[in-house]
């Protein structure tokens, strides 16, 4: 029995949300039931992911493999739950549950009508399933399919509001994302052409053997993948869709988009980069330097843009652009410490940013104000919301005791190990700029004289969601233990592939 559960666990965590998503639309009118189903399946996901993670941690690096349809590896599609997968699954389930909790009894107002709300949940679960799939898949084409599923559900979430601006943003996003998908598909195609495999492990072995015969093709494949995933995960010059999309979406959607969706593409990119190309090729083709350069540019530029924004959600969206830069910077420093930092940063940013977006959503819902300059004194009126926001900000800035610090610490020490001196500087400047765009919000909220008197903390589920995420920030900062362990193991495994 246990063996069955274990062996089916990787596919279960993917299938469960997808299945519920399809079922959901039959209960469209009974919104309470829909909500409880969503919460239930996500809670189940948390349990499954937690169990999987503990198994992975106990098994000391031997991944749990599941072959779809019983076809073994080179022919069939393979799902592999290693450290990286467990890490990301835990993250996906851990963040999507509080965000879903936040939507309870709250979305109808924002989205309009219970049918539309149900559709929102369908998309939400599709996205969650796709992200879980990204975590466990070991097949290149499967990556493409899941990326597309995620993209479409993201676009759907962005356009969930009736506002025409949302449709506009969604259309923009869709066009660019499809362009990115096309590039990703092209890149996968090139890899397939020269290696003949879609399974990452086999493709990697083959590539290792023959890359010197087809250097140009490898380069082009790498370039396609870089730009494709760059668009998807909003790497700086390709981030143009993100601010509009993330700021016009409903707040829970923004939270999940900024917090998780972007991270899913990154995880895919990491898999393709390290599992297929491998550390040697990355360095051989100077991908590392390009990545860290792009990352640095993204950190600085994204932060500067964020400082200039007055609209709260736009500021947070640009902050995502900056934080994506850290991940790419970390990917560019090919060593264990940096990769650990990168992965941990992905996790901490997922928790923090979804918390921030939810808090912003709560504020906007309560007061109807979207601009920071109008939010004077909000801290006194919405204490829990602003407390969560403050904790998130502190984490983002990288104050010790909060989750951001640990990721940054590893990034810093990894980039120093890699011998770069510019990278630490940029990381630190990024932190200071993060303070520059987040602390003014806190200052306005707590320390400026209030003109308005409206607004109060949201209802109980929302509060619980905020508290959960804030607690997550603190717990990740104070006791990152198993999470960091998973991240560092994942980093070791990623670098072990030749």
């Amino acid at each position: 029995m246990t063996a069955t559960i274990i062996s089916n666990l990787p596919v279960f965590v993917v299938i469960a949300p997808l299945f519920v998503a399809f079922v959901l639309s039959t209960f469209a009118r009974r919104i309470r039931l829909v909500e409880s189903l969503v919460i239930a399946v996500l809670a189940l996901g948390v349990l499954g992911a937690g169990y999987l993670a503990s198994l992975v941690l106990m098994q000391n690096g031997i991944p749990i493999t599941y072959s779809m349809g019983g076809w073994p590896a080179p022919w069939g599609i393979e799902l592999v739950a290693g450290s990286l997968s467990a890490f990301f699954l835990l993250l996906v389930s851990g963040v999507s549950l509080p965000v879903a909790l936040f939507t309870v009894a709250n979305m109808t107002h924002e989205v309009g009508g219970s049918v539309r709300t149900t559709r929102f949940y369908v998309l939400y679960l599709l996205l969650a399933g796709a992200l879980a799939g990204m975590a466990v898949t070991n097949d290149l084409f499967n990556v493409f399919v899941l990326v597309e599923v995620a993209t479409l559900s993201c676009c759907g979430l962005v356009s969930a509001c009736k506002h025409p601006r949302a449709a506009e943003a969604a259309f923009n996003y869709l066009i660019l994302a499809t362009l990115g998908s096309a590039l990703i598909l092209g890149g996968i195609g090139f890899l397939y052409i020269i290696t003949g495999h879609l399974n990452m492990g086999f493709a990697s072995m083959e590539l290792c053997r023959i890359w010197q015969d087809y250097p140009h093709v490898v380069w082009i494949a790498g370039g396609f993948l870089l730009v494709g995933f760059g668009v998807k995960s909003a790497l700086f010059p390709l981030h143009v869709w993100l601010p509009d999309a993330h700021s016009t979406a409903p707040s829970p959607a923004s939270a999940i988009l900024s917090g998780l969706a972007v991270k899913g593409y990154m995880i895919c990119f990491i898999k393709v980069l390290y599992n297929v190309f491998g550390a040697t090729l990355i360095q051989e083709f100077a991908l590392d330097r390009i990545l860290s350069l792009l990352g640095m540019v993204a950190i600085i530029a994204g932060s500067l843009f964020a400082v200039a924004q007055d609209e709260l959600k736009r500021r947070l969206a640009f902050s995502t652009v900056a934080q994506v830069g850290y991940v790419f910077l970390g990917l560019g420093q090919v060593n264990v410490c940096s990769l650990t930092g990168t992965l941990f940063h992905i996790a901490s940013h997922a928790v923090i940013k979804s918390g921030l977006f939810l808090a912003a959503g709560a504020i906007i819902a309560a007061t109807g104000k979207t601009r920071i300059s109008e939010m004077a004194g909000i801290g006194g009126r919405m204490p829990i919301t602003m407390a969560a926001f403050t904790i998130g900000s502190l984490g983002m800035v990288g104050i010790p005791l909060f989750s951001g610090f640990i990721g940054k610490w590893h990034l810093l020490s990894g980039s120093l190990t890699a011998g770069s001196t510019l990278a630490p500087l940029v990381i630190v400047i990024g932190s200071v700029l993060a303070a520059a765009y987040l602390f003014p919000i806190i200052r306005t909220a707590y320390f400026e004289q209030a003109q308005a008197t409206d607004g109060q903390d949201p209802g109980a589920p929302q509060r619980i969601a905020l508290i959960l995420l804030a607690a997550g920030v603190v717990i990740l900062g104070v006791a990152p233990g198993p999470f960091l362990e998973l991240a560092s193991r994942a980093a070791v495994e990623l670098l072990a592939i030749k």
Partner: protein
Amino acid sequence: MLLILLPSIPLLGAFALLAVGDKDVNMPFIASSITLSLAGWGLRGVFRGEQLTYTLPFSGPYSPTFQADILSCVFVFLAAFLWWAVSIYTPEYMKKEGRARSFDISTLLTLSAVLGVFLAGDLFTMLLFFELMTISSYFWVIHRRNEEAIRAGYFYLFFSIFGGLLLALGIVFITTATNGLPALGRGSIPPVEPRIFAWGLAAIVAGFGIKAGMVPLHLWLPHAHSVSPTPASALLSGLLIKVGAYGLIRTGELAGWGLQWGNTTAWLGPALTILGSCTMLLGVIAALLQSDAKRLLAYHSVSQMGYIILGLGICLFLGNAGGLSLIGAIYHIVNHALFKAALFLGVGIIYVRTGETNLYNLGGLLRNFPVTALLMFLAVLGITGAPGLNGYASKTLLHHAVSAAAETGLPLMVWAERLFVLVGVGTATSFAKLYYLIFLGRPAKVEISECESRRFHVSMVILAIVMLGIGLLPGLIPQILAVPAAQALGIKGFAAGIDHLAFGNANDVVSALITLGLGAVACRVGLATGVFHWTPPLWLTLEGLGSILCHSLRVVGRVANESYASVVRLISSMGRAIRLSVSSAYRKMNNSTDGALGSITLPGISADAALLMMTLAILIACYTCIDLQLPNLRLPLSFPAWNIFQQLPH
């Protein structure tokens, strides 16, 4: 224990005075009487050759030590006696000035501090009381609270503070150089690092020199002494500046009297000789030009301190052979305290009765003030060195010493000897002028208030009696005080010389008389020709230099501030410019509508896509050019030009 008791009696007196309020108690008199008698009783053992020491049992780096050798005793007695004498005079006088209580408190505190300085057993304790003395006597100077007093007070305070700091620096140098604690009255410690030791001596000399009114550090003295109430002036001139002299003598002791360690200390004697000569000369010249009686006396204090410093310098120069000079200096300290106090008190009486201290507004007061005139005459004779009074004895000793030094043939010493004589003449001239203009000459049109008080005269009479006594028995003080003191300080091998010294030597008497005569003549000439009215241009006077210095300090401060402000402005304007340009750049990127970065609109998507394509193209181009070397992203770890981050070569 007694050693702590002595300074604390006046201190307790001061507290008592604070406690009792406005009752009419002459606390300084009581305290100084007790102190005087207690000192007489308690310190008698010192004259039998004992050295009293007492250390407070404090842990840590500093345990205050007190000691009494004969030199300390001399000064303690002198101080207690002078305070006692002056305190008889004070109550009457302070009726005119007002605020008697605060004056008395500062008097008592100052006495405590002065006694503490003399009894201090290490340099720290000495500095402690020295600073306390500065603060307490500062209240004397600003007693009148008018603008002049405040200004003089600033002068006094800042100079004294500077002196204190220099002393601290000197202590630092000396303790570092000798690796030992700076004990006093226990001879000298051989320095480990001679250079630092020499610097330390220089700093200490400068520090005490400020208190002693040594040129060019005397600027505070004339102001402070002339604006403070007369009893305070008497004590300032009589004793406080002697604290500087005491310190210099102790410095000499620390330096091993100049000859033990070669070049480390050999410069000290000549340097002090030069400084002493300058002090003498400049003091007397300035005194000649004064029109204010108290200021004249104050400048004379400078001049007389010059004698003492000269004596010390010669002693250091000659070493053991210069013992005579040291004795002369100590002797002169005692004498000068007596007659200068008497002179100030006399002038004070005139001031109380007439409200005037400008010499040219006074005159012919002999009829109105016969007793005062007589006592003042004695004091004038004393200071000018007339035979039969105390000044003659010490000046003669000093003159002998200077002559002995001049016999070495060193030009410096020869000139010092000549100056010594010249200054003697100058002294006589200026006091002839003082006495003539006050008591003789044309009767002035000043109102004289009635309140002839016996108590004014009592203290002057006491002082005069002592002066006369010393004058008549000139060998007494050297024998019982100065010679043992010098011996205790480590100067040996001159006892014979002192025995031979006959104060009634015809040569000396004649030369003293000639000096007096020349002085009188010069005074006559000066008064007739109006030379005394010559005011030197501002830059020539030391006060002028002082105010220029003051002014330039202020300018330096202002310039520093302005340049700081301008640097700050420059940086902040640069910062603002950078911020503006950056912010306008990214605002442009952020807000432009037609397809730039940052915010996209529907038509903007074309441009965005174009951007995307361009990025792709560039990347592909990068990959296609096979050996593309990306610019190295590493910063250079070491600065190319200046290698401060590198290891030092050695």
